[in-house]
Each structure stands twice: as structure tokens, then as C-alpha cells.
């Protein structure tokens, strides 16, 4: 079975998008716990607190004040390493153009989150049940 202790941190200012992401992931990978943030700076503080050291982060880019790119830069400056997945309405190409090269991102998904995206994320993080 998967590691049910893993937490998914969803950072998105739109509540509908938060719900769609949660339900789609739960459908593929049951047993995960979710933490939701509408503002990236709050999410950054949460991660800095060290409460979820093995969390998986789903990050929207178009956020008010503290954007997804700002979040990535700040995280890069800190010593926290987390698997971060960008989840945006923008295409992968646009995100690749705007994103700074040195900021580590595990994957880029376009909304709405597809089953394949979730499976990729599960494989990357060993969240699927053993055969």
C-alpha cells in the first residue's frame, strides 16, 4: 500500500480548483491528507515550520501578491527540498518561458489535472501500491 502519511499541499486561490485537484488525486491515490492555501506566503510559512517535511506541493502560478514564481524563488533560497508540481491554466511552453531555470520543479501540469498527470506524480513519489 501507499504511504498514507504523505500530505499534499495545494496552493491555489480558487476554491473550485482546489476541490477538483483534491478529488481527482483522491480518486487515483487514496489515503493522502490535504492542506489548502489560497495565499502562497502562508504556504511558505507552513513549509518553513517543518510540520510536513515530506509534503508534495501543487502550486498555481497566478496568485495574488506573492505569486507562484515568488514562492519558487523563496523556496530555492531556503534549504527545504520538496517535490513541487506546477498546476496552472497556462501551457507548459509559457510556463517554461517565464520560469527561472534554477528553480527546481518536479513537474508541470495544466488544469484540469488529468489521471495521467496524477499517475506520474504518484510514480515519482512512490505513492502507488506495490504490485
Amino acid at each position, binding site marked *: 500500500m501507499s504511504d498514507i502519511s504523505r500530505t499534499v499541499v495545494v496552493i491555489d486561490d480558487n476554491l473550485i480548483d482546489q476541490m477538483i485537484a483534491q478529488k481527482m488525486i483522491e480518486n487515483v491515490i487514496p489515503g493522502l491528507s490535504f492542506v489548502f492555501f489560497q495565499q502562497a506566503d502562508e504556504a511558505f510559512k507552513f513549509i518553513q515550520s517543518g510540520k510536513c517535511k515530506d509534503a508534495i506541493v501543487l502550486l498555481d502560478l*497566478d496568485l495574488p501578491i506573492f505569486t507562484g514564481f515568488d514562492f519558487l524563488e523563496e523556496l530555492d533560497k531556503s534549504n527545504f527540498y520538496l517535490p513541487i508540481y506546477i498546476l496552472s*491554466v497556462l501551457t507548459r511552453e509559457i510556463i517554461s518561458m517565464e520560469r527561472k531555470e534554477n528553480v527546481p520543479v518536479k513537474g508541470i501540469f495544466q488544469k484540469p489535472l488529468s489521471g495521467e498527470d496524477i499517475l506520474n506524480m504518484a510514480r515519482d513519489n512512490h505513492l502507488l501500491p506495490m504490485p
Partner: protein
Amino acid sequence: MKIISSPWQRVVRLGTSGVFGLERTQIMMVNGLSAGMIVVVSAFLTFYVASGIDKWPNWLPAYPLFFLVLVLNGQGRIKAGRMIFFWGCLALIFSWCMLNRRNGAEYGLIALGVSSTMVFRKRRSVYFGAFSAVSLILVYKVYDSIVPFTPNPTFDYNVVPNLIFSAAVIIVFLEVMAFRELAGHYYKKLSTKYKILEDTITAKKKVEEELNVANEELRTSNESLNSLTGQLDQIVKQKSIELQSYLDAININIYSAVTDIQGTIVTVNDPLVKVTGFSKDELVGNNFRLLNSGYHDREFYKNLYRQLTNGETWRGETKNKNKDGSLFWIDQVILPVKNENGVLRYFLMLALPITERKEMEEQRAKAMQILESITHRASHDIRGPLARMMGLSTLLERELVKEDELGYVARSLLLSSHELDNAIHELTAFIANNHKLFAPERNGL
């Protein structure tokens, strides 16, 4: 060594003032012989008296003769002095021969004959003098052989003739030496003159050769110069035609102006006059700031002026204002012009009109902004609600929505639909407002 004492020198030089060459030598010879004869006669007179020879008065006529010669020469009567000397001597010596035979006076005639070569100027006079002396010797000899000779008891015939002979020899020797000295003197003088002449001729030849070489070089240079001048004329004509073509082209296509270093316009061409809307008279004498649109800041012009005053060419695009306030862009090159001493005097401005290009660039920039805006709207405002609708539909389709959540999902779907609808309307309106920017006839897109 100076062997002639000063009084002797004065005597020898009697009558030589203003006389040069052979004649001077002859006068000096006559003077010298006269003075010498006075000494010789005095010596013999002394000897005769001392020896008790009764013929001593025979010597006395020599004094007035030789003094007369010196007086005549001293007075400048050279010819008279010369004649008196020779013929007087001849008569005197001959009388000595005849009055006191076999005393050796005939040797004096020989010496006198030799001296004729030095005394007379004309050759025939020399021959005649020498011939006369020889003739008188012969007369004396004949007379002496015919008329019986009675020896003078007071006379020692073993001594006196030998003394007179010796005196005659000395006189001849001195004359020959004088000849030798004279010949040596003239040889040296002539050699020096010949050497100078030879040097002069050599130098002249050298100068002539150098002159010839120089003339030849000059001729060649002249030919080259003429040829070059011809070529230069051709080049100048060709370049003038080219330059005129350039100027014509400039006056058609390019704005040009010349200003002094303060920016005061010195001259402008017609295209620039036309684009500014000012007349030529209004522009010339005015500062180029007259066309300043205010678009560029003070720092821009400071940099421009600094570069030009450093002697560098400035290239850039400027926005200017014409007389009626319309703006026009030019792409200009400004060149600092220095005089022959390297002092900056003028600025030459050449420019191309680029107003249309700049307007097009501005339009393109605006169009790009609009395109970016459309892309942003499409990405966020349209793709956002659409993605949510797709996500919610997927949740419903996969029955991942609980019953109590259905209301929320339905409202979310409706909300997203409205958002999408609004976004599409706004985008449509936005494109409609900016459609002119995309008209192909305006911007070439």
C-alpha cells in the same frame, strides 16, 4: 730670407709705382744695375787710388751717369732712364776700353750686352743693344791689334783685368739669377693661376655635369608632373562628377545641415528646409534647438555634444518638431569638422527621414502589447474557467462528487460558465477596439 735692405729696396723700386709685370721688373733691374754699378765703380776707384793707378779719374763719369738714371726713373721717365743707362754704359765702358787698353773693360761690354735682354722691352732693341755691345768689342779688338800698345806703368795687368772680368762675371751671374728668380716667380704665379684655373675648370665641369643631371631630373620631373597633372585633372573631373552626383543624391534623399560648434545653423539643404516647414532664412543663423521636440532629455544632448567635441562622429535617431508643431523622426550622423590646424569648427549633419519607420515601430510595439494582452486573457480569463468547467465535468462524469456536493458543483459550473462568457465578451470587445492596429494596410502585418 730678406737679403735686400730697406734703402736698397727703396732705390730698386724707384719709378715702379703703378707699374706691374715685366716693365716693373725691367725698371727694378735698371735701378739695381745703376746702384750696383755705383758700388762697383766706387770699389774700383778706391782700389785705383790705393794702388796708385793714375787712370782713376776715368771712373768718375760713371757717377753722374748712374745717378741721372736713378733720377730719371724716380721721376717716372722710364724710357729715358733705360736709354741713358744702356747707351751711357756702352759709351762709358767703350771709352774705358779705348783709354786704358787691356785693363779688362771689354768684359764689361759683354756684361752690358747680356743686360740688354733685361733692360729693353722690345725684342729688336734687345738685339740691337746686344749687337752694338758685341760690335764695339770687335772694334776694340781690331783697334787693339792694329794700334801698338804701350803698357801703363802704374797698372798691374795681372790683377786689374781679372778683377774687372770677375766683376763682369758677377754682374752677368746676378743678371742670370735675376732671370731665374723672375722665371721662378712667374712660374709659381702662373702655376698657382693655372692650378686655380684648372680647379675652376674642374669645378665648372662638375657644376655643369651636376647642372646637366639636375636639368635632366628636372625635365623628367616636369614630364612626370605634366603627366600627373593631366591624370590629376582627369581624376578631379571624374571625382567632381561623382561628387556632384552624390550632392544631387543628397539633396534629393538626405537632409543635411552645417552648424558652428554652438549649434548655430550655417547652411541647410532644401529637403531639410521642406521637412521643417521653416524657410531657409529662418533656419540659417538660428540654433538647431529650434527643431527640438523635447522628446529627448538633457542628458541625451549632453552626451551627443560631448562625443562631438571629443572629435567623434555621433550616430542616432532623434525626434524633432517642425514649424507647425508636427513631429518628425530622423536617423542622423553628425560629423565634427576641423580646420587645417585641427581646431573644431563645424558640425556636419546628414540625416535620413525615418518618421514612417518609427511610427510603424510604435504600432508594432502596441500590436505586440495587445497580442500579449490577448494571450494573457486567453490563458487566464478564458482558460481558467474553462479548465474548471472541464475539471468539474470530469468529477461528475467519474461520479467523484458526493450528493451533498452536487449543489456546490452546479453553482461552480454556472459561475465558471459566466466567467467564461464574460471573458469572451471582453476579449471580443478588446480586439474590436484595437482592430485598426492589425489592419494590413497600416502596419504590414
